[in-house]
């Protein structure tokens, strides 16, 4: 691993002041460190944000659950408040990687990285999340731009993610047996007005499946999406699953999610 300077920021202001075109924030390090070891990324400065108190913790209000960006997966999965308010979010966190990844990895790092197979981006889309940064608020629907790409500007720091509490919801993932990343993961959330069906793992970036959302908003039953033939032309095809298999998995996982709601 190439050398770099390690900084530990005390607050968001200091963190964004230290940021440059050759720096990265260091949260759990579960993506940054392996990518640097493999030579896929190099930085001059790593700015540790774990000691910024404001970035950790979970708050529940009547309508929403707000999770600090540096909150670890294990804290979300163990939180009684999250379990009560949005049980599917707690079980999503429990299904990420392995215990050692969950002991370090953070929600902010996961969504900033926007891996096409990561779990949390689907929760953001399904639960109409608002991403709070040190500069502004961004709706989830405008945050995830493409493969490993987000609306964040250089040096912009995510401070918290605010999830809307749904009437019912469930996340169902078909995991890669080795890494536990989603080959396909579907997060179904029924809100007062409409239903979101957020899909991760299937395409280059998380998305809300409009066709299934419409069908389920009309009739919230797995029978309304049974046998749906999704267009697989933009779906990923790799050694784990072909595009056609992924298209079929999306429907299967969505049906499972609706039945589990």
């Amino acid at each position, binding site marked *: 691993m190439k050398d770099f300077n*390690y900084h530990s920021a005390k607050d968001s202001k200091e963190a964004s002041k230290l940021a440059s075109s050759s720096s990265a924030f*260091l949260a759990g390090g579960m993506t940054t460190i392996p990518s640097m*070891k493999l030579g896929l990324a190099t930085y001059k400065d790593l700015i540790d944000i774990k000691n910024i108190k404001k970035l950790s913790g979970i708050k529940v209000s009547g309508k929403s659950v707000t999770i600090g960006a540096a909150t670890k997966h294990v804290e979300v999965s163990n939180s009684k408040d999250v379990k009560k308010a949005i049980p599917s979010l707690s079980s999503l966190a429990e299904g990420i990687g392995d215990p050692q990844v969950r002991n370090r990895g953070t929600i902010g790092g996961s969504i900033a990285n926007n891996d096409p197979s990561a779990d949390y981006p689907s929760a953001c889309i399904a639960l109409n999340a608002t991403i709070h940064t040190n500069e502004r608020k961004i709706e989830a629907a405008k945050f995830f731009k493409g493969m490993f790409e987000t609306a964040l500007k250089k040096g912009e720091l995510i401070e918290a993610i605010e999830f809307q509490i749904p009437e019912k919801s469930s996340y169902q993932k078909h995991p890669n047996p080795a890494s536990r990343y989603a080959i396909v993961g579907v997060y179904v959330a029924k809100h007062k007005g409409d239903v979101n069906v957020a899909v991760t793992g299937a395409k280059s970036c998380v998305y809300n499946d409009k066709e299934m959302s419409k069908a389920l908003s009309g009739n919230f039953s797995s029978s309304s999406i049974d046998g749906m033939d999704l267009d697989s032309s933009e779906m990923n095809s790799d050694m784990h699953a072909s595009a056609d298999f992924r298209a079929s998995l999306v429907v299967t996982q969505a049906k499972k999610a609706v039945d589990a709601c």
Partner: protein
Amino acid sequence: MGKISLEVNGRKVEKEAPDNTLLSTFLREHLQLTGTHIGCDTSQCGACVVHVDGNSLKSCTALAADINGSKVTTIEGLETNGKMHPMQEAFKKLHGLQCGFCTPGMVMSAVDLLQKNKKPSDTEIRDWLEGNICRCTGYQNIVAAVKEAATKM
């Protein structure tokens, strides 16, 4: 370059190390604690698992600078007065290892499990060991060893 101060296996250590020093490198090369193994470059195998402030983590994916000031326990720190830890005894008794490469990480991870869940089921043991890969045993005897250790701890 910065000063790293840690308590490792009950002993205070203080050493200068470059900022890009991984915890695993610090343990193996600066402290000569080579019981912690390195089996991959992708944070997936778990051979490097140690405890930091009571929780297991992959030492190959944490910077020494990042955990400055913490308490670290490695496989070398499990024995007391030359007597093996019950988890090590159980792995030995039930053949929970063959080549032994994955064993330090397996044992450290399993000890952390029993700290959090005193009587885990087979499924809970297998789920917990998700991040520890073994190329030899087929896992059966590892699960049996963890169950045995649970009766002794």
